[in-house]
């Protein structure tokens, strides 16, 4: 890399990373738009919660489905993917001390994504695309809706290809020596899954666009197959990006140790190879697909990706434990956990994200993804109950947690409303967990997903709803509103910090000013080798081992209970 380019880099006073200002600007822009999309999604979510809570039932049917479409697209696609683009620009070139090879390509991609998102949201707001996130044919939206999604996908694909170019060029120019950092490898995993996802998006949305203007026939079963290659895989990009952020946050908040590079990297490779197959879960009750295809894609091969998640679910907390022990918290089994920086929103968000994703999202996902058990869960509220604890409680919370470090390190602003920021991950995480549990139990009582009227009041035949449903809907509603409050707290903190926040200065860091997370005030030692590291490795991670066995016990009980419930469907004898 030429000296003239290097001169323009900013050296981060906290991490020592050399930051290409062009990459930094793109990180900021993508992150800001992500927060705007999140705000739209949260606003729609409030309407949805207050409608599916039958005691309130606020929106009429048309507005409900419009809000549901808006919520799904802005949360599952726009917010998440804009944020992931920011993550990619951070993972390479920033984390590898490199340069952004073609900034103008980044801007073109960004423009395409913004234009696409605006087109989609405009169509939805105008009532020309009340087709939900899935837009299953024969539901037909305005052609501009499909065109907007195609533009967004092309923009995102361009960013991903730019990321690959950045990795290859910076490696060639010697920006980093030795291996690629683990966080960057996690981002590479997310980028590869993004290509798989976006290719499926192109394969289905281009024909659907042509169908919407009357140039092509559309087969509903083919649509469902290819759409879910996009719809579900897009959530697997989240998983990989989230895990990469977990490793980053563990390092920056408590000096977390990577337990074993080989194991963690192998787990990421398992994601690349097998996680996208989970798309088949959505087709488990489709008559067009055979049993062998269903079982292979949702069980045998997919379990290798589940294995990968369980590996990360162990190595991240174990890395935190070892990091804490290196910091001197060596007494007993859980001293490291008790004395962790719980008032650091970066740390609390990380831990809550791991717990909510693993305990609630992971266990429910594997269970209801089993072909046989799926028959008692499919198209019920158990499904959104599951993905709200994975995507929202897991991914979105991890993104929020890392934002508390992105604000001072990239935007160079102190976090506004610091007292509120300390509480925000708890409000959001606990709220979404209560909501997810409520949805899951509602689904167990047969309450369908997506549907405006859970009571089926106008159905030609009477539908009996268990009395417990009313109580569970209140649980769901209260949890949902609490999560929405947590989400709005996050938006307020992010917006005020970015546009009105005080600048991070050397003096502010030295004086321990408010609005700076502990990892920024004093970066924990990043110790990777030496006697002390060998010692903590040899001592193992007893606290994490206990937590892992609690997790496995919960998994076994939940899995067994579901098989037991399934057995009630076909009573024998």
């Amino acid at each position, binding site marked *: 890399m030429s000296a003239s380019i290097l001169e323009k880099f900013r050296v981060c006073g906290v991490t020592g*990373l050399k930051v290409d200002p062009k990459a930094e600007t793109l990180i900021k822009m993508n992150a800001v738009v992500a927060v705007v999309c999140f705000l739209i999604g949260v606003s729609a979510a409030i309407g949805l919660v207050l409608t599916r809570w039958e005691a309130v039932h606020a929106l009429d049917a048309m507005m409900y489905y419009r809000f549901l479409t808006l919520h799904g697209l802005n949360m599952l696609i726009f917010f998440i993917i804009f944020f992931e683009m920011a993550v990619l620009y951070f993972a390479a070139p920033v984390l590898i001390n490199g340069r952004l090879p073609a900034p103008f390509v980044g801007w073109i991609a960004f423009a395409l994504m913004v234009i696409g998102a605006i087109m989609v949201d405009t169509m939805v707001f105008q009532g020309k695309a009340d087709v939900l996130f899935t837009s299953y044919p024969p539901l037909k939206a305005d052609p501009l809706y499909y065109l907007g999604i195609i533009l967004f996908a092309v923009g995102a694909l361009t960013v991903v290809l730019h990321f690959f170019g950045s990795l290859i060029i910076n490696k060639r120019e010697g920006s980093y020596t*030795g291996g*690629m950092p683990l966080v960057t490898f996690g981002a590479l995993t997310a980028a590869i899954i993004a290509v798989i996802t976006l290719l499926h998006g192109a394969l289905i949305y281009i024909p659907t666009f042509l169908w919407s203007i009357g140039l092509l026939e559309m087969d509903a079963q083919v649509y469902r197959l290819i759409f879910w*290659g996009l719809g579900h895989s897009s959530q697997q990009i989240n998983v990989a990006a989230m895990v990469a952020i977990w490793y980053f946050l563990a390092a920056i908040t408590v000096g977390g140790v990577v337990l074993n590079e080989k194991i963690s990297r192998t787990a990421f*490779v398992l994601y*690349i190879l097998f996680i*996208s197959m989970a798309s088949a879960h959505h087709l488990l009750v489709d008559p067009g697909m055979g049993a062998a295809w269903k079982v292979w*894609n949702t069980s045998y091969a997919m379990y290798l990706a589940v294995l990968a998640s369980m590996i990360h679910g162990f190595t991240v907390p174990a890395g935190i434990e070892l990091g804490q022990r290196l910091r001197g918290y060596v007494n007993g089994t859980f001293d490291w956990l008790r004395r962790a920086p719980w008032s650091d929103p970066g740390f609390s968000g990380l831990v809550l994200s791991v717990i909510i994703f693993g305990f609630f999202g992971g266990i429910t996902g594997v269970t209801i993804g089993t072909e046989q058990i799926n028959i008692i869960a499919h198209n019920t509220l158990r499904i959104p109950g599951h993905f709200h604890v994975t995507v929202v409680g897991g991914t979105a919370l991890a993104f929020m947690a890392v934002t508390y470090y992105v604000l001072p390190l990239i935007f160079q602003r102190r976090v506004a409303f610091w007292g509120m920021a300390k509480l925000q991950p708890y409000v959001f995480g606990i709220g979404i967990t209560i909501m997810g549990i409520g949805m899951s139990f509602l689904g167990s009582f047969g309450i369908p997903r997506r549907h405006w009227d859970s009571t089926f009041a106008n159905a030609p035949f009477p539908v009996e709803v268990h009395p417990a449903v009313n109580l569970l809907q209140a649980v769901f509603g209260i949890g949902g509103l609490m999560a929405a409050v947590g989400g709005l707290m996050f938006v307020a903190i992010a917006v005020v910090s970015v546009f009105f926040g005080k600048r991070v200065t050397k003096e502010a860091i030295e004086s321990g000013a408010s609005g700076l997370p502990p990892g920024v005030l004093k970066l924990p030692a990043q110790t990777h080798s030496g006697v002390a590291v060998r010692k903590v490795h040899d001592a193992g991670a007893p606290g994490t081992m206990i937590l892992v066995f609690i997790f496995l016990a919960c998994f076994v009980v939940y899995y067994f209970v579901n098989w037991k419930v399934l057995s009630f469907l076909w009573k024998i004898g």
Partner: protein
Amino acid sequence: MTNPQDNQKVPWGQQLFERPLLLLGLGLLVMFVFYTIWGLIEIFSLPQATLP
């Protein structure tokens, strides 16, 4: 922040898997063969339903 593998010899297995295009090819291959193409074969080999 430091990379634990700075200036270290990278194991051959890791060198193999640090090739973005190789991983991309493998990822695409597995997904398209087992999910997409197999799925399309399943759908297009369905017999035509006989309507009453």
